[in-house]
């Protein structure tokens, strides 16, 4: 044992650079992965805790109060699945205005419940007491703080029915676990009893069959004996009571958790894939390092063998050397993960809107450490097989030369571009040594290109459309329900002023599909439904289209028959195709207006229509003319790409991803170049000395070294770009499948591909030039003779 320890100590002392590099790379990965997994776990736990504290039901549904009959109440209360059903009266709003920010989502306004937690000013803890609300004051869920960009003390104007509104001062932000997350559109907001009464009395008389005001929030608590998943409980409960069919919207606990951690999940999924790449890079660096170390220590290893060291003992020394470096990296990474987890957790809180515990999950760290160590051990084991091939006699008699340069396929050396051709020769004559570096560059460039393409995809209308999201140029909806709107007339009016590329109307609501309450988009022109993956649009009135997620949930496929029901109406439909849509994070389906009418038995009222204009320069002019003519009956919204909330939201996420991926890539490039350069420098020390003796300047030799890495990085970048052509869309599809998007149509814009290639090539060139600084400091004689 002492023999191994003695050699190990000597190796660690001599190879400090390798030790530090492996340790740093491992630490970077461990810190990122540990913190990401811990954030995920802490948030899931936090939502469950918040549910428990606020005594939220396993299913929350909102139903128009008049539809909540005694019969329905009784069937719910007598259900064998439910332990308890709670009812809360609320008023539905139709949008909000805070400063310059508007939001078209509905909020359910209600009186402050007894069990609710109020965040302190920094939102890093709860206030001990939740002060009662005075008239004109409102508590909002924390998710609205980031979504609307508002703060305590700000004013918020809420739109009620038929132009009625109410203004409040934000008194604070509360933890509302069911719909508080930024990613959930509908919200529960809290006002004083006095305000509730005033608004109710003012608006109730205006309520019509189509424009609803008064709702009841139903919280259903599952019976302890059931032990069903929230989704299954919701399905069975609905089959028994039909409450979801009558509800305007419903959400179960699983959906809440899914939606709340959706954005962090998407980001972390992409980061995790990137971390897997980085781990592959660490493995490549490790194998390269082991290979070159065995070459450099060929004689020493031969001598040790001649002294009786067995192959397995020598391999054990090398394995321990690397595993100790990784272990140190794991420890360092776990420590570094603590502040990272805290920072990521704070960032995510603006999205999830619940307060998690901080800290790294021990289980995550242990599992991660074991995986890293196990995979590394296998790689080291494979790479150290070379030790077995070392013959003591040959090593001692100087037989190592032939293992240095492995190729006869060499690039010619020319006087005209001497340094470049010499660099090329150095590369071609030691291909095996550099092939790993090319793969490393390829993986880094691939990741950088992919994140750029993601940005391009999410910033472009065509990209969004391929994912089932239409970004209109002009939105038109009517603000006066009594107005007689002839949509054909408006279409013609717009067409007279500009060429319309696309026009459609979408009405979205919650409808039961085979017993599951799902978001349904009803299109006036079903041929315009975007994001078709397989099959075709539901052009006939007995067809509909579902997402892959819904197909999986209901265990149905294209051609199958499904039942759509809403309150007392029900109809059978054939699934005509599969499409992708981020609507309700993929849990949605779509059909034409005629098909929907077949189920409801009445004509679908179109309140909203969107237009995509061919010549974008006409948008302002057309909207002004529309305003002039129809301004009293219509709300006209104009979107431009720089001020589009959807594009901006995704843009922020992509920017964060870009920073992470670019920063990690540059750090990795630095460490990798340092390591590879150090090894190459050791192996070529004599040659460098000879070149110096021949009259090459240190600057020229450094340049040659750097050019070599430039050639490698350009080659790797090209490979990375090729990989991205084949795999970027697939990788992105896998990461975004969480939000219902699986097929990406990426547009390869030159800048998105060239910028990563340039960044990585410049980094490799510069870092190699810096790493080769030793050439300048060492005398020619030392290089040759030592």
């Amino acid at each position: 044992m002492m023999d191994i320890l003695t050699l190990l100590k000597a190796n660690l002392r001599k190879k400090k650079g390798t030790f530090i590099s492996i340790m740093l790379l491992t630490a970077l990965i461990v810190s990122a992965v540990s913190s990401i997994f811990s954030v995920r776990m802490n948030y899931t736990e936090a939502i469950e805790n918040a549910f428990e504290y606020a005594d939220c039901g396993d299913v929350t549904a909102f139903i128009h109060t008049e539809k909540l009959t005694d019969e329905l109440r009784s069937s719910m209360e007598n259900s064998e699945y439910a332990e308890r059903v709670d009812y809360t009266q609320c008023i539905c709003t139709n949008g909000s205005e805070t400063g310059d920010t508007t939001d078209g989502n509905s909020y359910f306004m209600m009186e402050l419940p007894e069990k609710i937690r109020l965040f302190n000013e920094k939102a890093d803890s709860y206030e001990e007491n939740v002060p009662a609300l005075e008239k004109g004051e409102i508590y909002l869920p924390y998710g609205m703080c980031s979504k609307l960009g508002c703060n305590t003390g700000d004013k918020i104007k809420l739109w009620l029915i038929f132009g009625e509104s109410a203004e409040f001062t934000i008194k604070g932000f509360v933890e509302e676990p069911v719909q508080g997350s930024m990613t959930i559109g509908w919200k529960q907001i809290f006002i004083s009893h006095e305000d509730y009464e005033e608004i109710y009395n003012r608006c109730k008389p205006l309520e019509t069959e189509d424009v609803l005001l008064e709702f009841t929030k139903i919280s259903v608590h599952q019976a302890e004996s059931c032990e069903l998943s929230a989704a299954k409980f919701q399905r069975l409960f609905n089959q028994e009571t039909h409450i979801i069919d009558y509800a305007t919207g419903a959400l179960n606990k699983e959906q809440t958790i899914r939606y709340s951690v959706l954005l962090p999940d998407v980001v972390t999924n992409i980061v995790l894939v990137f971390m897997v790449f980085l781990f592959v890079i660490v493995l490549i660096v490790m194998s390269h390092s082991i290979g070159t170390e065995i070459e450099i220590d060929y004689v020493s290893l031969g001598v040790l063998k001649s002294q009786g060291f067995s192959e397995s003992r020598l391999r054990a020394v090398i394995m321990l050397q690397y595993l100790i470096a990784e272990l140190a990296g794991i420890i360092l990474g776990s420590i570094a993960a603590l502040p990272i987890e805290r920072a990521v957790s704070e960032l995510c809180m603006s999205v999830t809107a619940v307060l998690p515990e901080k800290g790294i999950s021990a289980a995550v760290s242990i599992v991660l450490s074991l995986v890293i160590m196990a995979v590394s051990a296998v790689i080291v084991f494979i790479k150290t097989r070379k030790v077995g091939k070392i013959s003591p006699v040959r090593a001692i008699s100087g037989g190592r030369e032939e293992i240095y340069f492995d190729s006869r396929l060499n690039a010619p050396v020319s006087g005209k571009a001497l340094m470049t051709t010499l660099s090329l020769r150095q590369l071609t004559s030691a291909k095996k040594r550099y092939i790993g570096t090319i793969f490393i560059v390829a993986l880094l460039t691939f990741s950088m290109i992919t994140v750029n393409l993601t940005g391009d995809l999410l910033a472009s209308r065509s990209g969004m459309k391929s994912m089932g999201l239409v970004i209109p140029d002009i939105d038109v909806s009517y603000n006066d329900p009594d107005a007689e709107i002839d949509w054909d007339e408006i279409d013609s009016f717009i067409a007279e002023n500009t060429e319309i590329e696309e026009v459609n109307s979408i009405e979205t609501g919650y409808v039961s599909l085979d017993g599951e309450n799902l978001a349904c988009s009803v299109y006036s022109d079903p041929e315009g439904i975007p994001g078709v993956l397989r099959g075709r649009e539901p052009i006939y009135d007995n067809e509909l289209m579902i997402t892959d997620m819904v197909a999986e949930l209901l265990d149905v496929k294209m051609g199958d028959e499904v039942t759509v029901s809403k309150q007392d109406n029900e109809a059978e439909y054939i699934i005509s195709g599969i499409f992708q849509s981020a609507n309700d994070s993929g849990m949605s389906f779509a059909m034409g207006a005629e098909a929907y009418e077949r189920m409801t038995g009445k004509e679908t009222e179109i309140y909203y229509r969107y237009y995509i204009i061919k010549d974008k320069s006409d948008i302002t002019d057309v909207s002004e003319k529309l305003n002039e003519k129809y301004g009293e009956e219509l709300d006209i919204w104009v979107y431009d790409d720089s001020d589009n909330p959807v594009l901006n939201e995704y843009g922020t996420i992509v920017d964060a991803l870009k920073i992470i991926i670019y920063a990690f890539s540059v750090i990795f490039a630095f460490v990798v170049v340092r390591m590879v350069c150090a090894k190459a420098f050791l192996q070529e020390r004599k040659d460098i000395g000879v070149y110096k003796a021949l009259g090459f300047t240190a600057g020229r030799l450094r340049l040659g070294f750097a050019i070599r890495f430039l050639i490698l990085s350009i080659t790797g970048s090209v490979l990375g770009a090729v990989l991205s052509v084949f795999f970027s869309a697939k990788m992105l599809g896998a990461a975004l499948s969480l939000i219902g998007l699986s097929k990406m149509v990426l547009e390869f814009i030159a800048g998105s591909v060239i910028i990563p290639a340039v960044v990585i090539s410049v980094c490799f060139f510069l870092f190699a030039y810096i790493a080769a600084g030793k050439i300048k400091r060492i005398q020619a004689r030392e290089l040759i003779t030592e």
Partner: protein
Amino acid sequence: MKKAILSAKGLCKSFAHNGGQIHILSHIDFDLYEGDFTVIMGSSGSGKSTLLYALSGMDRATSGEVIYNGRDIVKIKEKEIAKLRHTDFGFIFQQMHLVSNLSLFENIAVSGYLNKKRSSQETKKRTEELLSQMSIDHIKSHLPSQVSGGEQQRCAIARAVINDPKLLFADEPTGALNRKNSEDVLSLLTELNRAGQSILMVTHDIRAALRATRLLYLEDGKIIGEMNLPEYSPEEEQSRETQINSWLSSLKW
């Protein structure tokens, strides 16, 4: 009157060791003359190679001056030393030190390419001439590991002279060769000297020293003896060897 091509003045070289200093060269003063085949002899550890490296600018002296063309090369910048190496100085190593992934042709040509006075085509032509002169033109595409030590050393000589250096430094060029190859290499150096090439060679081999026109003896970092000889001729080898042996004996060799 011979013209001095390079002069050492008060040259010292010492290394730090265990907190103290080891003095390898101690205040050396001497001139190297144009057209001479100067050989420095001395026992192991006397500082022969260190002196050669200090004079050629391969290593920096701790103190003192090495005057070449009126300039002290100890003090000149790295870039200027590099220029000297590919314009005015040539160097032959004991272990040849050919670049392992370049063919023999390329090992010679690569030095030539540094010389901007010649075009690439002219360098290639000159390389071919030298390959032929060194009798290694048939193996010019071979890598160093594929040829014998003697062939490698001939290639190293060709590389050292491709830029027509004013001074050729040779560090025990026959030290790693067998007798036959040693003789071949020494004959090549003699031929070059006869053609006017100034040479400074370090050796502890008397057979190599026979080729010298001037002998210097180094001991404990100081030059303690000097002897001038006529041009080498094979017919006088025996008497020359006796003369040198007797000189060395007087220096307690």
